[in-house]
């Protein structure tokens, strides 16, 4: 896809702070929708998904403190113990930064397979914290949260960039 001089290639353009902020706001609202019962257990972790996405795409924009703050907000919204999501998201951020180049060298579906372990680690951290704080673990459906979130990864570029899949060649920095 070659852009004309008047209209530069969308994908070459770095995401603006506004796009990133708006997408996080949207993810937050999605998270706050009235999920209940089994749907709550299956609710994808939209914030973690976007965190990985923007960290991989715009590592200069996203810092560790953003991950931490998002986590604190998620904790208050979910009325859980302050710090649990913050811990999970900090680890998600670190893993995304660490495996960034590797993730970028794949196509969308294969990228999703790399995102899955990152999301699983975040979920494990939450489960571990719950075990230590003696909260009961939710039902087995809850473990499908990470795979569902990873599935959403495939659709994410379409939603945010009007482009079905993204690979290294479309990313020129």
């Amino acid at each position, binding site marked *: 896809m070659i852009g004309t001089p008047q209209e530069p290639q969308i994908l070459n353009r770095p995401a603006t702070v506004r796009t990133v902020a708006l997408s996080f706001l949207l993810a*937050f609202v999605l998270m706050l929708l009235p999920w209940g019962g089994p749907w*709550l257990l299956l609710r994808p972790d939209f914030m973690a998904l976007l965190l990985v996405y923007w960290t991989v795409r715009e590592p200069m924009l996203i810092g*560790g403190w953003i991950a931490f703050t998002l986590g*604190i907000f998620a904790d208050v919204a979910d009325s859980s113990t302050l710090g649990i999501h913050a811990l999970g998201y900090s680890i998600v951020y670190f893993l995304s930064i660490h495996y960034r180049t590797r993730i970028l060298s794949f196509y969308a579906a294969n990228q999703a397979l790399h995102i899955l372990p990152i999301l699983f680690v975040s979920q494990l951290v939450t489960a571990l914290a719950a075990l230590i704080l003696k909260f009961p673990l939710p039902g087995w459906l809850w473990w499908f949260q990470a795979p569902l979130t990873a599935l959403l990864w495939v659709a994410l570029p379409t939603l945010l960039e009007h482009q079905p899949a993204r690979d290294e060649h479309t990313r020129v920095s």
Partner: protein
Amino acid sequence: MDIRTPDLFTRGPSPLARLTFYCALAVACIVVDFRFHQLGAFRKAVSIVIYPMQEIAALPGWLVNSAWEALDSQHNLQAENEILRQRLLQQANTVQQSKALQSQIDTLNKLLNLRQQQTAPGVVAEIIAVAHNPFVQKIVIRASQDGEVHAGSPVISVEGLVGQVTTVNPFNDEVTLITDKNQALPVMVLRNGLRAMAFGNGEPGTLSLPYVPVGSDIQAGDMLVTSGIDGVYPAGLSVATVKSVERDAVSAFAHIQCIPSAAVFSHRYVLVLDGVQAPEGDLPNLDQPQAEPPGTTRLLRKAKKP
């Protein structure tokens, strides 16, 4: 166009160092919040920031509900109205009797020099949401405009006890349900006054009584009400019905499962009580018998024998 050049030399601390820092900060948050409960003000401040987003997220549900109500036929509303009228009439008898009984109890308490338990009228609150956290059993309520809600107040619905207000935020309040893992409440078997502690199982629709000795007189179908000895819940609120009692030779305690009376998820409104107001301002003396049936203490002693 926004162009960012990577900083090659001013990198700051390594990612691992930063990860360690943020993880330590998060763990510190968890410890301070969970153990020392010192982050209430901070949580309130953040809740103000996220309030608009909560409102936006509640919009679709509200729209669907309004549309549903608008479409609800007049016939259905009339039928519902009729049922409610009948129910009111059925309860009128009980209400009138309970007034007479209350005055009798007051007189007897005065005669016996016992302290009296007073319950203030409650505040009606609307259930806005179920907390988005599969690890806890909580609901979010919004009190009616003139009402004031305090942390620790009991919350009831038409059928019985729902839970307790645990967090008071500027725009809404969190109620921890009695089915939450960390909730314990003193109950009493309505049939014989046997007292016990009921604990949440961390899942909706079940409660358990883990510390009732095997020999106690309790059976499936027994009604459990609050005993009022903790000074938080007024006595006599309906709590649960015993579903099953299993006794085995291995354990000194019976395995008792109960079904809570209040169906939280089928209601829109709850009543926040103002809690028990002890006249002296301290917790009720547990050694002194409260306004309970005469046989209670004797039965409890009998039950506690090995």
